[in-house]
């Protein structure tokens, strides 16, 4: 269980995250929505400490992660895998090695310097790639893959970290609708089958509605909405996205997911939101 207690983070004059308190139960799939600059990204980066700690506590299973350092911090980062908008793979390495990078949080420095991984780790990487339908591409260089494939490699890398938690920072913002759907379905499947908590930033409402159990809306660093997709009314949407002198947000304009994907566990909700 992950708990944020009065977390605040400022960059100079700008307060990116303002007094945020949240609880995440194990196994949830949570979507965080909001305008660019609302603090969604910073919030995720505070959790895995890619951003330096601000004030407030972030507690995971009794451990305050804001004060971790050295080996303990590396282990925590391994335990809460991150998936990035731009995939953040090492382009010039092959796909298999990119996935094996997910193991380095548990390995010593010397074997990693020689890119030496155990047979067990290699097998785990192959299985993870197979699960994401990418085993045929395992020996190709990462930059020869399409964006959607690269993001799935990044998810395989996350799986190799044996995470309790996956943080996804705009995982589909750089993808076309079809690949966006594949990536969201992969995250949802992992969430349901492996019981891994997934917290994902999304800039589209329909993706959040279609795949998440719970939606958190952020505006100006504050949490302004926290509830189920059904509770997300147009008045709430207005509060999350709208500005005083702007007209109502048209939900169809923020759509990136093709409404054709009715299969899978998320299908029911997705049909409800098709417009």
């Amino acid at each position, binding site marked *: 269980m992950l708990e944020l207690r009065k977390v605040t983070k400022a960059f100079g004059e700008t307060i990116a995250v303002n007094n945020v308190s949240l609880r995440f139960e194990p196994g949830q799939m949570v979507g965080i929505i909001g305008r660019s600059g609302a603090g969604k990204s910073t919030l995720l980066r505070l959790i895995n400490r890619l951003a330096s700690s601000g004030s407030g506590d972030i507690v995971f299973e009794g451990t305050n992660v804001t004060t971790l350092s050295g080996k303990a911090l590396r282990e925590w980062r391994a335990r809460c895998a991150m998936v990035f908008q731009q995939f953040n793979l090492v*382009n010039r390495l092959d796909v298999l090695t990119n996935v094996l*990078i997910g193991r380095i949080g548990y390995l010593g420095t010397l074997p990693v310097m020689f890119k030496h991984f155990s047979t067990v780790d290699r097998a785990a990487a192959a299985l993870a790639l197979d699960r994401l339908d990418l085993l045929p591409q395992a020996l190709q260089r990462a930059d020869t893959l399409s964006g959607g494939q690269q993001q799935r490699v990044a998810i395989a890398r996350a799986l190799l*970290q044996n995470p309790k938690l996956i943080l996804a920072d705009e995982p589909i913002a750089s993808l076309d609708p079809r690949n966006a759907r594949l990536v969201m379905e992969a995250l949802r499947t992992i969430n349901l089958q492996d019981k891994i908590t997934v917290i994902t930033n999304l800039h589209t409402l329909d993706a959040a509605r279609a795949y998440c159990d719970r939606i958190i809306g952020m505006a100006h660093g504050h949490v302004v909405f926290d509830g189920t997709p059904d509770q997300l009314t147009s008045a709430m949407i207005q509060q999350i996205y709208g500005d005083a002198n702007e007209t109502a947000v048209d939900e169809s304009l923020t759509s990136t997911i093709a409404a054709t994907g009715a299969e899978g566990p998320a299908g029911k909700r997705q049909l409800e939101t098709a417009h």
Partner: protein
Amino acid sequence: MSTLTHTNGRLTSTTREERLLSFNARYRQQQFTRRNWTLLYGALFLAALSGSVAVSDFSIPGLIKGLPMAWNYIAGTLPTLTLENFWADLANWYWGLRFWLRLLVETILMGFVGTVLGGGVALLLCFPASRNLVENTGIYFAARRSLEFLRTVPELVFALIFVFAFGLGPFAGVLAIAVHTAGSLGKLFAEVNENVDPRPIEGVRAAGGNWPMLMRLGVVPQALPNYASYLLLRFEINVRGASALGIVGAGGIGQELYVAIRQFEYTDISAIMLLLIATTSIIDITCETIRHRLIGQDMQAGH
């Protein structure tokens, strides 16, 4: 004229004429400033150039008077080769070929070992000397300054010191080359590092990597083709450098060339010079071909 203003939702109340006039004024102002800067830099450059000419005694008449003498010297070193007795003349000219070739190989190996040793040190020092890879400015500062020290002292000076410390011979030369190479390659490697994409590094950090792992998996794969290219370039330079180190007794063919010059063995000078020119050209061409391949096509397999 300004009927468009309300249709495109502009909030300002200025007319188009006013906006264009304001733009025109700003444009002229920018042009004026740019021209003044160009003139200022031009004047500074001319002042520096004329100052340097005055200090270094450079003079066109002196150049014209001296050039034929330089040519006479070079012409004097050339042997007389006759057509009817060509092979015998050639053998006579290159009487010391076996000995010279051995020295030439020694020179190339000095350059090679010096490049490898210096490259190794450069690889270790380049990461702390990259601004984007270290948070501690003290470490960055120390790494940068030590690289500077290594490369600002000329090879010949280091060679003199090492000959004094380790005695005559190629060992001193190799060390001198390695020290200078570490300094200059370290700086070039660090500049390569500063241009890598930060996203893979962040990916490795988020997977739980420590600093050496970030360097090995996030930085090195991206920078490797450029490292290799600079290493080859440095090898070319070091073979040339190694051929001069013999002058201070630090091994290589330079020693033999120096003896020939001092003892007025004119044909020996041209023989050795030609060997040197041919060797360095071959190394240059080979390295350049490999470098273009590394940079141009990018390497197929990752490392």
